[in-house]
Every structure is written in structure tokens, then in C-alpha cells.
């Protein structure tokens, strides 16, 4: 996809991000990510935050919406909440399988406030790069995101 990365190790990227330098935007720009959460404030915050780093951020509130977007667009990273409604409770895992099938190279991060060793094990089995437990400060989430995308562009 022609991503460019001017930083060195993942640590460099994270340090740049924390310092808010111009370099960090060159490092992180041009990626496309999908954020999936049923809470509008979280979607808003994620979109605002990552957009400032040059990311193109799509947001989805529902599993089916996210699945439709994944079919249409190629994402570098999907950041999904485990629980999108009160009814089923683990739609995030369904989405992971769909993403894996449609776009094997896409990085996936799972966010959950209802984590358990079983869920985490299943998520890892499905190829999730990282399982993060809510609440998680946005800069910490960003560190993981930048680390993953930077790592891939080096590979």
C-alpha cells in the first residue's frame, strides 16, 4: 500500500507520538483504520485522535455495519469492542473472524470491559494482535496501534 515510515523501532514511534512532533505525523499518516464500538463518545474520540495523526478513520456502531465496511474497504487496522450490544455480548469475536477471512493482513485490536482468560484465548486464536482492557487511556491505545502498523511496514 505504499506506507512510509520514517521512524526507527516501535519505541521511536511511540516516543514521537508522545512528544507530538511533526515527525510523528509522517510516521503514522496514510493508514486506514476502522473503529467499532457502540458508544458514540468513544467513536468520536478515536476518530478525532487518530485523524490528527493523518489516519483515515471509519467508525461503525454495529457488527453488520462493520462487516459491510470490511468487505468494501481495505483496512490496515481494526479496533473493535468485544461487546456491541447487550443481546449477544461477543460480536467482536464474530467480526474478527470476518476480518480474518476478508483481509488476512489487517491488524486487529480487541477492546473489552468484560475480559476473561477464555475470551482472550479465543481472540488470540483468531489472530488478534492485542487484547486491551477498558478503560484504557487513548494514548496507550495509540501506542499499540502505532507499534503494530510501524512493525508491519518494516516487515
Amino acid at each position, binding site marked *: 500500500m505504499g506506507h512510509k515510515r520514517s521512524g526507527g523501532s516501535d519505541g521511536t514511534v511511540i516516543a514521537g507520538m508522545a512528544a507530538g512532533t511533526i515527525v510523528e505525523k509522517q510516521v503514522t499518516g496514510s493508514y486506514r483504520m476502522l473503529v467499532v464500538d457502540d458508544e458514540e463518545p468513544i467513536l468520536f474520540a478515536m476518530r478525532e485522535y487518530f485523524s490528527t495523526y493523518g489516519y483515515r478513520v*471509519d*467508525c*461503525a*456502531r*454495529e*457488527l*453488520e*455495519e462493520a*462487516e*459491510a*465496511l470490511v*468487505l*468494501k*474497504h481495505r483496512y490496515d487496522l481494526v479496533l473493535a469492542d468485544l461487546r456491541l450490544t447487550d443481546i449477544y455480548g461477543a460480536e467482536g469475536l464474530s467480526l474478527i473472524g470476518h476480518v480474518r477471512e476478508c483481509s488476512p493482513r489487517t491488524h486487529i485490536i480487541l477492546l473489552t470491559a468484560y475480559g476473561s482468560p477464555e475470551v482472550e484465548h479465543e481472540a488470540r486464536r483468531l489472530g488478534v494482535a492485542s487484547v486491551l482492557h477498558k478503560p484504557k487511556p487513548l494514548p496507550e491505545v495509540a501506542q499499540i496501534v502505532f507499534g503494530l502498523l510501524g512493525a508491519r511496514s518494516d516487515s
Partner: protein
Amino acid sequence: MKPRSLLDTLFEPGAISVVFQPIVDCRRATRRLYALECLVRGPAGTNMEDPEVLLEYVRRKREEARIDRVCVGTALRAAAVLPPHPRICVNVHASTLGRDRDFVTFLAEVAAENGIATTRLTVEIVEHAPPWDGPGFLNALVALRERGVRVALDDVGLGQSNYKMILDACPEYLKIDRYFVQGAHRDPRREAVLESVAQLARRFGARVVAEGVEDEADLAAVTARGIELIQGFLFSAALPMDRLLESGILDATFPSFPIREVAPPR
């Protein structure tokens, strides 16, 4: 209060809009407007503005019949101001025809309310899901044809638009997907597919519509195979009704310049 679901927002009045893309008859040197395909758009500024995302979402919610009714209603209300000559093509899921037993009646009623003869209508069958109610589907096709509605099979060569569907639906039109059309002039394998579909259509007494024609080279490749109904940006983008009316497209002779108002889906 429970927040509105995304699905609910799609079915609010005015959420769905329709644009029209010409299908041009290139049989003669003078190209003429043959039909207008009604294409749906979701709410502006949302993920659903993209029709592919919108329809995939609706399919996953198993609400094809509901969205088809909204789309057909919106399209025919907008088409009421059209002159009487171009055919009007509306997209309907095969599963809708199979499951919604009143759909054909609904279609006829909406057409009548808007002064549109059902003989001007073409139902373009789209389907992305495996088996639906087969007998119900076939009955609906009979009911459509009793009202003079013609049937087109959309996306021929992809998904469920396969030989079985061609046999079952016996469509008057086969719409060959842009995947097979674009680049055909420099790809003998695509040319072979076009030729095969054209031959198949002739055996069925059907006509082929080539979708996604964007340049003269592909137009030449398509017409060389006897495919004369052409849809694509070479002639016009999909236009909202006001732009369509002022574009000149509705005149007897098709303008020689492309009309590009609405950007292609992302």
C-alpha cells in the same frame, strides 16, 4: 431512552435517495437513451451513503425486502416526472421476490400512483445469498410478467447470478458486471467471457447490458460482440433527477459528451 438503531435511521422518511444512470442503445450510429437504472444512496455523510455498504448491511440484517420496498417507492416517485419513453429499471433482491408475497402488487400500485405503466418497468434481480424461497420467487416472476414487467439479471457471472438463475428467471436482459467489461479491449480472456454471455443471451432471446463501460476502447470491444446496451461513465454518471432533467440525456439523441455529476462509489 434507547438510541435509534442504524437500521431505524435508514427507514426514516427521506433517508434513502435515488439517482439515475442511463443505459444507452448503441445499435445505430445515433446513440439513444434506452433506459434509466435507479440506484440507491443511503444518508449523506454516513457509511451508508455508499450503496455497496448500505446493501451489504441491510442483507446482513435480513431486511432486503424492507429496503427494496423503500427503494422502489422512492425511485418511482422520483421517476414520475420523466417522459414516457425510457424504460425504468429498479433493483430487487431475489429473496424479496421469494419471501415478500405482496411485493409485485406493491410495485404495481406504486407505479400506478405515479403514472408509470408497468410495461415500462424492468426489475433487475440482484442476489448475494444462497437459497431462498424458490417457488415463491418463480411465482413472483410470473406475476411480474403478467403485468408486463421485464426481468433483468444483474451481475451476471458473479455470486448467485449463475446459470441456474438464468434458467430459472429466463431474463429479458443479462447485465454483465463491470469486472468483465473493464479492460476487455486488451484482455482476450475478458473478450471471451463477453462473447460467451452474448451468445448465451441470443439463445435465450435476451439482450445483454454491459455495465461499467468507461472508455471508447472497451465500448468497441463490447459492441464488437454484438452487445449494444451500454451503461457506464463513458456516457454518464448516475445523476439526481434535477440534473438528469437538465442534462439533455432525455432528448431523443444521446449527447456525445460524458456527463459526470456524481462521483462513482468509493
